């Protein structure tokens, strides 16, 4: 186990290294940030000065080395736009994104998984059709539209919830629903198909033939087996919801990472974009590691030796 984790961390370092190089190059394809940093109509000399000030006059390999040197020391550089350390900006936004992402993950799991199970157990029934309908709506209704409808109904008409911003739990409800909705539908569909496959197996037939209560057959024998693909998707979804909830964050004026990244891209704020992407990379690596360890806890056939 320890050996597995150590090896995985070493692999992760390689992955993050490749990610850093990729994002370093990609972000530089978006254009010259100096044009946005200097005032409009600035002379070529002024532009050169600004370029020099931010170290953009150096060659790319030199810039990359500087970026990596900082990153190894835990520094992500200084944002062009905010003129503040990127890490400060990031960690200021992170709690908000975690709250929103975790709430949306909880919604997607609490809705998607039970609905998927019921739909698989009562396949082709009224229940199943209702769940399939929800699944289809979930995947086809865009989050921004749902967000606007929620605001209209719950803030404008009913006046139950605040329209935007962050504060207490009431601020989280609508963005979390708007964000989790799509993922709940994908959870539902995956849980349903995974459960259907398991329910058709011989060991479930034997579990029924043993005369076990239905709750035990479905809730333990079947669900535990259906859990692994569901868990994988949940891990990936969570990272996406924390880091890339741009549209929902914009609609609800939620001060999260997604918006920070979006603004960074828009402003050609190289250090900011690089920093946020690298941090997202860390999060993906971390969550995948946790998911792998949980796999091994669930399934005795998976041994952590790779």
């Amino acid at each position, binding site marked *: 186990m320890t050996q597995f984790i150590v090896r995985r961390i070493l692999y992760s370092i390689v992955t993050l290294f490749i990610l850093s190089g990729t994002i370093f190059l990609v972000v530089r394809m978006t254009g010259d940030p100096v044009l946005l940093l200097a005032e409009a109509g600035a002379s070529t000399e002024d532009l050169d000065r600004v370029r020099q000030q931010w170290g953009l006059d150096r060659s790319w390999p030199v810039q990359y080395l500087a970026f990596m040197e900082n990153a190894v020391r835990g520094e992500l550089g200084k944002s062009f736009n905010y003129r503040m350390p990127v890490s400060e900006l990031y960690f200021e936004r992170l709690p908000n994104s975690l709250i929103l992402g975790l709430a949306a993950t909880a919604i997607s799991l609490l809705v998607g998984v039970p609905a998927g199970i019921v739909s698989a157990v009562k396949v082709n029934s009224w229940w199943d059709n209702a769940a399939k309908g929800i699944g289809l709506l979930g995947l086809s209704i865009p989050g921004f539209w749902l967000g606007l409808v929620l605001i209209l109904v719950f803030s404008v008409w009913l006046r139950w919830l605040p329209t935007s911003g962050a504060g207490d739990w009431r601020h989280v409800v609508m963005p979390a629903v708007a964000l989790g909705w799509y993922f709940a539908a994908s959870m539902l569909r995956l849980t349903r198909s995974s459960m259907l496959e398991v329910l058709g*197996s011989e*060991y479930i*037939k*034997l579990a029924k033939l043993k*005369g076990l209560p239905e709750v035990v057959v479905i809730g333990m024998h079947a669900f535990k087996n259906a859990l692994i693909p569901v868990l994988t998707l949940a891990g990936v979804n969570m990272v996406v919801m924390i880091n890339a909830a741009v549209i929902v964050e914009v609609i609800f004026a939620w001060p999260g990472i997604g918006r920070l990244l979006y603004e960074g891209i828009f402003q050609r704020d190289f250090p900011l974009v690089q920093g946020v992407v690298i941090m997202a990379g860390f999060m993906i690596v971390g969550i995948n590691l946790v998911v792998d360890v949980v796999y091994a806890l669930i*399934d*005795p056939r998976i041994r952590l030796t790779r």
Partner: protein
Amino acid sequence: MDGVSFSLNAGETLGLVGESGSGKTTTCLSIVGLLPRGARIVGGSVVFEGEDLTRKSQRELRRIRGRRIAVILQDPMASLNPLFTIFRQVAEPAFFHQQMRGKTLRQRVKSLLAAVRIPSPEWRMRDYPHQMSGGMRQRIVGAIALAGGPSLVIADEPTTNLDVTIQAQYLDLLKDIQRETGVALIFVTHNLGIVAKMCDRVAVMYGGTIVEQGPVRAIFDDPKHPYTQALLGSIPKLGSRDPLYAIPGQPPNLASLPTGCAFHPRCPQAMERCAIDEPTNVHAGDGSVARCWLLAPAAAPSHG
């Protein structure tokens, strides 16, 4: 399926034989009230220890399944849950039906595993199915069947997926267990050699019906139904140079059976009547019963 009627007594072994798709497994599952989706029981009765199981609710059936009637499925590699220990899977029937807990339960599982000859059961019961061979897994499935203390065990082709050497071992084991516990056994198979070795009585199924049944000796020595004759004729014989007999044609689809006797399109002795009227059971003198017009008193003069 229709006309499936058989009975057996405690301690007895009934063989249920027939080609694939002749309705053997469905018969077994309908005994315990577990039918595939879309199937249902429209008539008839399953009388077990004086009670009609077809009139019972799923709730009541659940108390019978695993406790009084147990089933051994055919694929040992697939019938155990990969995520649970052997202990847990063997313990479940005793846990839910007999409310055994703690030490008593451990003791029970240990003795069940010992009964199916798992070496060092104390140690092996902590293992998971993937750590065991096919033969061992099928013995575990046997232990699960015995765990609830059933009076009837239905074994649905329990040795089809095992190596030949292990097959014989497993059959001996089942016989020993039957001798010790006195359970009745329904043995579903398409292997007539196994029937001869294991069973007291045999029922031959064709097209969802039992076409002939009786004591093993009577059926093997003097089969009455042409299908049984054909089945017995298609067993390879050691040293024989004649080509192996194969029944011409395909077994029928249960959803669209031929009119009259389901076997008539493939029957070498079919008569006009066979395509029109369904034959009824005729008792022969040696204790066997066959569903064939050849045996009816008004039928063709003589045969055989």
